[in-house]
């Protein structure tokens, strides 16, 4: 085995036997990518709001209403016995809000039109949650409308509600002229309900001679469709190419960068450790130059970086459904980024005096460059001034190349990819040359 291969093999053995280094090279990047990908994708449980529901009425109408809420894909409803308990759940952030259906809700529904007395639904929510408040109000109203529209097709229920309404009207102190108007309204509604019911029966029985077209494009019965206050349709809008398709398309390139940084710092520190422990002296006493020794360290670190990044990419594609437009371009991206960090490793190895000092100083600098370069907060969400400042960080250029290969859809013929790739190659050459010069000079000093 040639000396360089022997040194590479030795470094790989040492890496695998050093649990801390192996953790930061192989495990931490994966945990980082999965954690932040999950966080930014909403936790995997969808975006459903968790609310508590207190049904103090326990009537047929209130239970129908609760069912309508539960059927909403945007809500995750938990039944709670009392308003006090529901309030506590919201205060302790176990629930986002509560919906309280008071006693008399069913009776008020039977009154057909709300008189403002009883039956009103209460939503309990932190006032700072303005967006969620609007959302829940909309969903509650939607459930109410659904119930109302349903009532028109249920003649029996509608008749009962109208009878209750007429009885309430008779007892009320509304003036006779207004009573007459309401009475005519109730008669018209009763007639309409009858028509709706007839139409619905005909829709359910295709042999009906009415000849009325059934349903709308969404498949709803014509009678219900006609009662929608606003017609809402959904239009497909294709996502902007400059944004990733899912959160893991962002977090896995970031995780790859953390893995590569971990390898670079680990190998740089181990080189410094060899210089202070005496093994470097023995290596120099062999028929090897200090440059060859550093080159072997660089090759070993590059190999590990490629393995780590390759495995992470495989996981991203196979498990987290990250789409990679071109695997050959992606391979080129990983290679270019690896070269750059091998150069950085060799430079750090050249200036490191001891293992501990190299670790401390190296990680302190790399963390700052990582934050600035988009390895924590993605580049595309940074404010322009920070994005401009990030040009000094090699991490920024590495992130651009990786993002270009994963979700920006760049190729090496695009200038957007060529510029950061060229910068990374420059970093590789300068770092490696500087590292070798420093090591050679210090060894002969």
């Amino acid at each position, binding site marked *: 085995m040639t000396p360089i291969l022997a040194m590479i*093999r030795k470094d790989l053995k040492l890496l695998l*036997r050093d649990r801390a280094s192996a953790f930061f090279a192989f495990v931490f990047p994966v945990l980082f990518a999965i954690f932040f990908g999950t966080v930014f994708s909403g936790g995997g449980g969808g975006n459903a709001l968790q609310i508590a529901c207190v049904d103090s009425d326990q009537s047929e109408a209130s239970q129908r209403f609760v069912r309508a809420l539960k059927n909403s894909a945007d809500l995750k409803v938990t039944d709670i016995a009392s308003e006090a308990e529901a309030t506590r759940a919201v205060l302790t952030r176990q629930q986002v809000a509560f919906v309280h259906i008071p006693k008399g809700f069913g009776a008020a529904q039977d009154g057909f039109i709300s008189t403002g007395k009883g039956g009103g639904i209460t939503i309990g929510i932190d006032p700072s949650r303005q967006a969620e408040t609007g959302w829940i109000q909309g969903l509650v109203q939607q459930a109410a409308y659904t119930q109302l529209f349903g009532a028109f097709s249920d003649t029996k229920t509608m008749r009962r509600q109208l009878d209750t309404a007429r009885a309430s009207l008779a007892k009320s102190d509304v003036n006779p002229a207004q009573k007459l108007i309401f009475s005519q309204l109730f008669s018209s509604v009763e007639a309409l309900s009858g028509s709706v019911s007839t139409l619905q029966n005909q829709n359910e029985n295709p042999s009906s001679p009415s000849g009325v077209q059934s349903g709308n494009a969404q498949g709803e019965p014509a009678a219900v469709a006609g009662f929608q206050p606003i017609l809402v349709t959904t239009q497909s809008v294709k996502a902007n190419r400059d944004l990733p398709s899912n959160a893991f398309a962002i977090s896995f390139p970031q995780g790859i960068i953390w893995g590569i940084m971990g390898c670079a710092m680990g190998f740089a520190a181990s080189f410094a450790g060899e210089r202070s422990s005496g093994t470097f002296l023995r290596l*120099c006493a062999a028929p090897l130059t200090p440059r060859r020794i550093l080159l072997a360290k660089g090759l070993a670190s590059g190999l590990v970086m490629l393995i780590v990044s390759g495995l992470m990419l495989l996981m991203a594609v196979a498990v987290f459904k990250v789409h990679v437009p071109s695997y050959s371009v992606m391979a080129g991206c990983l290679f270019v980024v690896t070269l750059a960090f091998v150069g950085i490793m060799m430079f750090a190895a050249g200036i490191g005096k001891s293992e501990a000092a190299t670790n401390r100083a190296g990680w302190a600098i790399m963390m700052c460059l990582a934050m600035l370069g988009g390895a924590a907060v993605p580049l595309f969400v940074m404010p322009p001034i920070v994005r401009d400042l990030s040009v000094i960080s090699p991490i920024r250029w590495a992130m651009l190349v990786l993002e270009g290969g994963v979700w920006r859809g760049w190729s090496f013929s695009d200038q957007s990819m060529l510029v950061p790739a060229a910068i990374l190659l420059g970093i590789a050459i300068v770092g490696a040359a500087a590292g070798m010069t420093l090591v050679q000079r210090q060894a002969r000093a």
Partner: protein
Amino acid sequence: MITLTDVRKSFGSTPAVNGLSLAVRRGEVLGLLGPNGAGKSTTIAMIVGVISPDSGRVVLDHAGAQHEASDHRARSLIGLAPQSLALYEELSALENLTFFGSLYGLSPALLKERCEAALERVGLSDRRNHRAGTFSGGMKRRLNLAAAILHDPELVLMDEPTAGVDPQSRNAIFEIVEDLKSNGKTIVYSTHYMEEAQRLCDRVAIIDRGKLLALDAVPALVLAHGGQSTVRVLHAGSAREQLTQTDRPLDVLSAALSAGNVQSATIDSPDLENVFLNLTGRSLRD
């Protein structure tokens, strides 16, 4: 085999080696004797070529060809057992030797044979698969030495090979040195223990503050620089010994015994400690 000619080396403003000239003969054990900071390790590093002298020359002479110490191709002739333990603690004894041996281009079969032989020689065969980090100080020193002789070098440089070592391992190391010498190897042995230099070395170079003070066989050094012997006689009934410095200790002893009434008598012959004291004005242990 090795010639150092007016070699100088400074680290910053501190001269570590200051005009050192000496020659190491083929097949001899040359001791470098001096206190800590005398320049012994720097001298060894310059011989092996890992440090370049500021001025002067270090030349290796082998098979009629001369090589500058800085020529890395000459390093296959040299085995180094450095003062700091140059071992990978996470690797086993065998893995350490296999790795270091592979740096010298040994074939796999020869490498395996040499590793087994080296482990046998230093008494670590039964610990071949144990991590070096689990070894005692003495065992690590022996493994350190095994890595130096693995590729059968002509010249072996040992920098304080018994530092921090138990007596058993120390004796084992002495036996290895004597065995290497009997096999015709050239050894440069750096130490600050005079008894080691006296036991093992054909010639001893006394070094202090980067300068060579004297170089000769031990008896010659003692004769030239050791000063006089001391005869100590305790007479019966006397509380104090009578001390006599003399170049003829046997005559003094004989006269004291003839006078009678001698309870005890001792001759303290000069040693390398006295040599160093007389040359530098300081003790070797200072």
